[in-house]
Structures are given as C-alpha cells and as structure tokens.
C-alpha cells in the first residue's frame, strides 16, 4: 500500500520546521527562558528563598537575641546594615528567618487547596450532573463570606497559631480553586478530542489521565501560583492581627505589627517587612503571568 502515498502526494508546508518539534514541556521551558520578566522575577524569588532557607549562611546574629542599647538603629548602622527592631534584634536576620514562616504560612494553604480543591473541581467538572451540582453548590456557600473575614472567623474559632492560620487560609482558597478547576475541566470535557477518546473506547480514568489532566493542570497551576501572591498578603495580615504566628517568632506580618509603633522613629526600618511582603507577592503574581503565556501553545503559532 505504499503506492497510496504516491497517489496523494503531499508537499510539506514550507513554513513547517524541518526538525521535529520539541516536547510540550520542553517548548514551555524554552519560552520561559526567553521571557525576560519571568526570568528576572524567578531570580528574585530564588534570592528570597536562599536568604530564608540559608539564613545562617547570610547572617551570624541570633534572630531572638536583642539588646536594650541597640534598639531601633537606622538603616546603615554599623554592624546592622538594615538597622534593628524595637528590642534591638538585627532586622536583616529577622527578615531572613521571618521569611521561612511567611513563605510556609503562604504556600502551605495553597498547596492544600490545590490538592483538595483541584480534586473536587476536576471531579465536579468531569462528572457533572448531581455530583457536580452538589460540590459546586457547597462551594457557593463559602462564597457568601468575604475571604478575609472568613479567615479571621476560622482563626478566631480555632485559636491563633501557625497551623490554624494555614487551615483557615486553605479553607478560604478551596472554593475558588474548585471553581477554576471545575470550569477548565468542564470546558475540556466537551472538546472534540476528548469525545474522540471516548469514542475510541478507553476508560474514563484513562481519558482523565491522558487528555483532561494535561490540559487542565496547566491553568490550575497558573492559578495556584497567583493565589500564593494573595496568600502571602493574607497570611501576613492574619499574623499582623495576632491570629497567626505568635511572638517572639519572626514572621513578616508580625514584624510589621511590632514595628508599627516605631513608624515615626525609624520609618524606613519599619517599612522593610512590608516591602518584603510586597516584593514576594508581586514576584509570584508576575511569575504566574509568565507561566500562563508560556503554556499557551497557540502563541508560538
């Protein structure tokens, strides 16, 4: 039957690349590398990760040890290049160690909501019908409360502390996560290629694994990344209100609260934890945008 190819000759499109295309994730990686903003943002985030996780490498001070004499030193003071806080602890050290809890308190809720919400959303989106309706209407109940109020209420109920703040934020993030994953799954369920896979007689689990997940995980991950930027602000907010991490432990939101009184004495020093919150949140947001455009396979058409 090789003569069939001769009967229906096919000139290759001149614009088609001669070399075979790279794999999907490889091409996503290439586009990410070519995106200057995302690369710069990733470098900043890596830097933040390094100074927080590797805090003992970048500072030799103890984050809990202060000095009465060395309180509220300005930026650039000898020995304390970012100054000191209201009990005389080195601010650079506190920022580095504080980042650990801030990032943990921000990323953990998103991870939990990604697993729980993603599962529920994909289930609701693919199954549809009664299961879908049940899940989605339950989520709608949570939407009735403003997210920050809901988080405060849950924290108030469970008491303060790091794990309770993580639980509270996870509960807040699950409904939007379910909604996003439900939407993208429901859309992909009706795509012709999913129908074609159903028509080829493969099982529902196989279809979800090969066709739905690959097309759904991308958008969900992008959304999760952007949620981290919200999560950083919310978790810092909970700590600021005294509902999250408890003193004397270092955490950016908590530091912002305790430096609040010093705002007229050392305004720049007092603003530093806020700056860290803002910068980290911003970076995650920009990174999520970068992922979004790198994953859009149609852009490089």
């Amino acid at each position, binding site marked *: 039957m090789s003569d069939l190819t001769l*009967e*229906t*000759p*096919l*000139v290759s499109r*001149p*614009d088609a690349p001669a070399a075979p295309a790279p794999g999907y994730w490889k091409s996503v990686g290439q586009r990410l590398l070519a995106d200057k903003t995302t690369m710069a943002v990733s470098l900043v985030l890596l830097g933040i990760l390094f100074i927080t996780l590797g805090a003992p490498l970048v500072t030799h001070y103890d984050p809990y040890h202060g000095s009465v004499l060395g309180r509220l030193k300005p930026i650039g003071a000898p020995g304390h290049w970012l100054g000191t806080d209201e009990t005389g602890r080195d601010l650079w050290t506190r920022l580095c160690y504080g980042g650990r809890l801030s990032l943990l308190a921000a990323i953990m809720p998103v991870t939990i909501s990604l697993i729980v919400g993603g599962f529920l959303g994909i289930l609701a989106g693919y199954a549809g019908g009664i299961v879908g309706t049940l899940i989605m209407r339950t989520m709608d109940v949570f939407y009735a409360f403003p997210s920050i109020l809901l988080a405060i209420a849950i924290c108030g109920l469970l008491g303060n502390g790091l794990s309770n703040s993580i639980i509270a934020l996870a509960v807040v993030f699950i409904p939007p996560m379910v909604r996003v994953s439900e939407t993208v799954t429901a859309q992909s369920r009706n795509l012709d290629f999913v129908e074609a896979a159903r028509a080829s007689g493969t099982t529902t689990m196989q279809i979800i694994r090969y066709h739905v997940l690959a097309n759904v995980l991308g958008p969900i991950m992008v959304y999760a990344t952007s949620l981290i930027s919200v999560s950083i602000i919310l978790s810092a907010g909970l700590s600021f209100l005294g509902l999250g991490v408890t003193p004397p432990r270092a955490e950016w939101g908590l530091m912002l609260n305790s430096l609040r009184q010093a705002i007229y004495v050392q305004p720049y020093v007092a603003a530093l934890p806020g700056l860290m919150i803002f910068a980290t949140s911003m970076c995650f947001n920009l990174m999520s945008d970068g992922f979004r455009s790198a994953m859009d396979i149609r852009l490089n058409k």
Partner: protein
Amino acid sequence: MADTASTPVLRVEDLTVRFTRRNTDVAAVNGVDFSLKAGETLTILGESGSGKSVSLKALMGLLPAYAGISGKVWLNGQEILGLPAAALAKLRGGAVSMIFQEPMAALDPVYTIGEQIAETIVQHEGCDNRTAMKRALGLLEQVKIPSAERRLKNFPHEMSGGMRQRAMIALALACKPGVLLADEPTTALDVTVQIQILLLLRQLQEELGMAIVFVTHDVGAAAEISDRIAVMYAGRFVETGTTRQVMRQPMHPYTRGLLSSTVHGGMRGRALETIPGSPPNLAELPPGCAFAPRCRYAADACRRDIPVVTTETGAMARCVRAAELMPA
C-alpha cells in the same frame, strides 16, 4: 459629465497589504488591480489565506493599524485610500457598504433591526426618525422579509440565520450604496437558504444598479452570481475573465486544479484530480509564481517572474505557459 455606464464606480490599482509584526512579515495582498462598473458583479474566488477577504477589508478601511496598505483606490473618481478616518466613516455605509459571513457579528444585539437601519439612515442623511423608520420598513420588504412590519421590532437573536442575512443586506442597502462588498455572505448558510440569498442579491442589483464585489471560496456561488471572476492565489489575481471564460476555458493551472477538484454531479467512480500540497506560507513567498511549487506544468521560468498573458477576449492569466496551455 462622463457617461456613467462606462466610468468605473470602483477602480483599484496595485493594492498591496502587508502585515508586519515582530519578526514576521506577511504579504497578504500583492498587487491587486480591477475596475468595476455600475451594475456589475466581480467575484473574487480563492481558498483560505488567498488574501480575498483582506483585500475587501482594505477597501473598507477595516484593517488593524499595523497593516501596511499601499496602492490606489478610486470610488466614483475620488481617491479614497489614505482618507482621514472621519471621511472614511462617512463613505462606509454610504457610497460603499459591506455584508459579512456572520450577520450576528455585524448586527448589534441590543437594538432591534428597525432601530439599526433607521439609525444608519439618520446618520448619513440627517432625516428624522419617523421617515427613517418608514424607509427601514421599505428596505425589509425589498429584501423579502415576510411580515416586515413585525420583523422591524425583532432583535437579531430572534431571527433565523437566513432572515438575519437578509436584515444585514437591508442594513447595507440603507443609504443606496454604489458599491456593495460581500464577504462570503452565503458560506455559513444551508443550501436551500444560500440560493435564496444569491437570487436576492441578483435581483437587488438589477433594481438598484449597484456594483458588487463578491468574495467566496465556493465555485458554485461564483457561477451563480458573477459577471466576471477573479481567481486569487497567494495575494494575487492569477486569472480574470468573464464567468464563462473562467469556468469553461480556465487558463491558469491553479484555476484548472480548483475547478477539477471541486466535486460536482456525475463524477462518481472517478478519482478526483487534485492540486498537491497546501497553499504557501504568505510570510515566505517563493520568488516568481507562488503556485509553481504545486504546479505540474512548472518550468524554470516560473521561478523568475510572472508575465501577464491577456487574450483578445479580455481574459487574463498570470502564467508563463498560459498560451500553450490554453484550450483550443
């Protein structure tokens, strides 16, 4: 005063459109010439990506800002390419108007059909609303919309596909245009509705004497409506002639391929003659004849330049070998 029957209402000379963005340079239209008299229909026949719709949009000034348009276009003797936006807007819907493949995209969903037609009339002629509404009713009757009075108060989504197409034609005719540009107006319609719209356009042209530029990929629709056909490939007219000339004695190998690969009655049991390959990438057009890579008659000369071959009957083909390939 020149004789209106012989002066073209629309004349286009060397129309070129390029889309330049970032690192791509797409040569969508590469030198299109034609002229059109009142009451005449020219069909631009071409496949997707041939530049036929882009040409129409360039005439209407509907292309995005990054499109580089050059050439000359005269409408009733007035040069219109490069006119300021306000003057162009005045022409649109006035002396020249356009109908589209998707009437839903051209009609505003929040106004009734009557309101939209009346609004156009008021804007271009400055008459009062009552007169305009009366004219709108007349237009709906002219495009044979049954129970026009009631339909005047319908929103676009309340009408069927064929009815919407008629309503859009009525809207386009509101200010008695001299030139009607039709961009695949029958493509999305069912066969039984398609023929109704074609017949309607033919009849309206007889009544109103306007010139029509009809863009389509459908050979059947072209045969039904046109006086002349221009076959477009890779942004160029590769062949022009009367409908009879193009359909009966195609000179260009592409036209022949297109006609022979169009399935029609009585071809059962025979393998279809096809054009191998797919249309060229407009960002990397080959030098010379763009059809040469797919053409079974291609010679070396085809890769250099493309001569324009004209017969004594007025047909034109851009092909080195047109003369020898011409049917006896």
